[in-house]
């Protein structure tokens, strides 16, 4: 790459819970920020700029909360940016932070994303009734369930595959001390026995609503060289398409396919399934694992579920997907994308603890948002890019 090489120097996250009533918003952010700065071994004077990401302001009832958070973020006198690209925002925020370094403007940037869902109710905020329309909306689950049904019809995937994903991710979550849901005893049968919420999506196939934050310190080549085990950023991609349009493929949106194509091309990856060691993919409802495996090019159209069914996406499989437990185990919406990106970084840094994928050298972080229309992703590696 012609531009400045860029690396993740450290990551941090909160203990995610449905209600973190023990902390304020500043306290929640600082729990993640302090861990990331300790992990990166940097002080406030090392930080040149701060990039904040968060989903809709209506969730916390604060307009542009980064303004009041400036003290807690050590941002006074520094540049502070606030990104909002719907559910993909945690990923996009990391990419904006990386571009501050890649462009040669800054040496070390702190980036943080958060959501404190317990301040309000996301189902309420996402289902506010807009005049003149039918009040059919039923939050994110109601929005995505029809498209999951379309996937089932299109791929012919057997019904238990969704439950396999859910059981795997929740068991992975049990290995992650920060995860909101840690269910080591969950089984495919118990998932299939759980209540059908938004048919065809069951209760146990649905992400929780979490309070949480995630932070990273991103540095330039020199900073990466000085770090003991940085995660080098090998490629990044973002794509957007409209929510609805005539003939739109809502199961495997072109924006996601285009972003993945650009990502693999940038990184010189020709066979993602063999060349990527671990993937943290934004899977808020179980079926999105096989859907995104296809959209990302890990499997041919209609074939993604076969990788899942064969156990290839479990720890120990060909491509462990969401070894951290993923969005199905923790979902502080605005931070969920950054958690995917930082968990990918932790894998190649060798700092994933109990959910470490043995020998992971290349890992994908992926996020999507809106009506499956905003995509952001990065590929990180333990080796410096050529």
């Amino acid at each position: 790459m012609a531009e400045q090489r860029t690396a993740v120097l450290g990551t941090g996250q909160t203990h995610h819970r449905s209600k973190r009533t023990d902390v304020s918003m500043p306290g929640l952010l600082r729990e993640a920020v302090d861990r990331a700065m300790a992990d990166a071994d940097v002080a406030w004077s090392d930080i040149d700029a701060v990039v904040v990401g968060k989903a809709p302001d209506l969730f916390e009832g604060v307009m542009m909360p980064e303004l009041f958070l400036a003290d807690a973020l050590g941002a006074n006198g520094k540049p502070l940016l606030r990104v909002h690209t719907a559910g993909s925002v945690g990923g996009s925020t990391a990419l904006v932070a990386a571009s501050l370094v890649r462009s040669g403007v800054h040496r070390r940037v702190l980036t943080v994303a958060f959501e404190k869902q317990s301040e309000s109710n996301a189902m309420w905020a996402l289902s506010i009734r807009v005049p003149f329309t039918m009040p059919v909306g039923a939050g994110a689950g109601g929005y995505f369930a029809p498209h999951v049904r379309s996937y089932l019809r299109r791929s012919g995937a057997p019904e238990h595959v969704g439950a396999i994903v859910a059981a795997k991710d929740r068991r992975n979550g049990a290995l992650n001390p920060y995860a909101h849901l840690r269910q080591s005893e969950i089984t495919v049968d118990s998932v299939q026995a759980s209540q059908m919420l938004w048919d065809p999506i069951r209760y146990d196939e649905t992400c929780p609503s979490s309070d949480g934050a995630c932070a990273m310190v991103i540095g330039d080549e020199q900073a990466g060289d000085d770090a003991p085990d940085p995660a080098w950023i090998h490629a990044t991609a973002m794509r957007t398409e409209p929510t609805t349009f005539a003939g739109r493929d809502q199961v495997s949106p072109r924006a996601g396919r285009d972003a993945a194509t650009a990502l693999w091309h940038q990184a010189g990856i020709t066979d993602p399934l063999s060349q990527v060691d671990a993937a943290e993919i934004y899977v808020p409802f179980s079926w999105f694992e096989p859907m995104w495996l296809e959209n990302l090019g890990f499997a041919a159209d209609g074939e993604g579920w076969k990788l899942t069914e064969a156990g290839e996406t479990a720890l120990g499989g060909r491509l462990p997907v969401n070894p951290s437990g993923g969005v199905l185990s923790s979902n502080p919406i605005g931070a969920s994308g950054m958690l995917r990106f930082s968990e990918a970084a932790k894998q190649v840094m060798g700092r994933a603890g109990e959910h470490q994928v043995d020998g992971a050298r290349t890992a994908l972080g992926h996020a999507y948002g809106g009506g499956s229309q905003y995509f952001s992703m990065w590929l990180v590696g333990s080796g410096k890019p050529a």
Partner: protein
Amino acid sequence: MTEVAVVAFAQAPNVRRTHGTTNGVEMLVPIFDEVYTRTGLSKTDIGFWCSGSSDYLAGRAFSFISAVDAIGAFPPIHESHVEMDAAWALYEAWLKIRTGEVDTALVYGFGKSSAGELRRVLSLQLDPYTVAPLWPDSVSIAALQARLGLESGRWTEQDLAEVAARSRRDAADNPRAQFSGETDVATLLGSAPTTEPTADPTADLVADPLRRHDIAPVTDGAAVIVLASAERARDLADRPAVISGIDHRIDTPSLGARDLTTSPSTRLAGEAVGTDGVEVAELHAPFTHQELIVRDELGLGDDVRINPSGGALTGNPMFSAGLARIGEAAQRILDGDATRTLGHATSGPALQQNLVTVLERG
């Protein structure tokens, strides 16, 4: 690293109220057309898109998503969004071009301020535990700032009225301004003879010490800027406005903990970009006294022409007014009327966050 230039700017008419939607599509489609025509670019030529807007202005989550319809965003586009004035979207686009990843970017901002009660909505920007529950409105907070300067001798009512009078006079040459008019300090302060029988010199004192003329109007609007790498810019504009510096900083949100008559963030950003030799400055000051603070922090002397567009006091479309200041500053260079200009944007209560850019003839 790649140099970046502004090659085109357009803005929607600044109006008190549009009948359009809160997603800005009706305001954006015509101004996208304007910049396409001016540059010869089409949507598929644009390497990166970035926008600025606010869900709270629209009163609903994800309000910016439908704005991408105005682009015709299929095939998919490389795009991002900041929940800030679009001047900060321009900053993100500037970064993107500098990395060498793309060589053109289209930046837009939009906002329908009239959809809600703006000054009350903006109180949600304040500390949610100890300040926002009191609902202090944005005008009252600016008025506290204005009084500190009046009583400390930093500025006088005449100084403020002079800013307002100059802005209104200059706006006469700006067809997109919300209002304009020939006036002077004596008229604005009610000390001139008047033919209006009901004229009451205190009637204008809408948020003592601020008078109506000290306060930017509530404005619906949108703006767009096209950026290109300096190399590409030569094909797209006769006189591209090269960004010689751009920087932004933030100050503490604690209103009672800082000297509100100063703006350290503006000063730091100005020092970072270097403001010497600027001929024209477009400053985003929604209140007359804030123009004086920003001028001072940027070290702009009396020889610098301030806000020839009329500035935010004659049209302050939230989330695009800052971008429009950069656009107006760039336009002086695109038109060949200046060689070095400055654009400034502000965000948050009492000038909390500020962005400064200096543009030069390439």
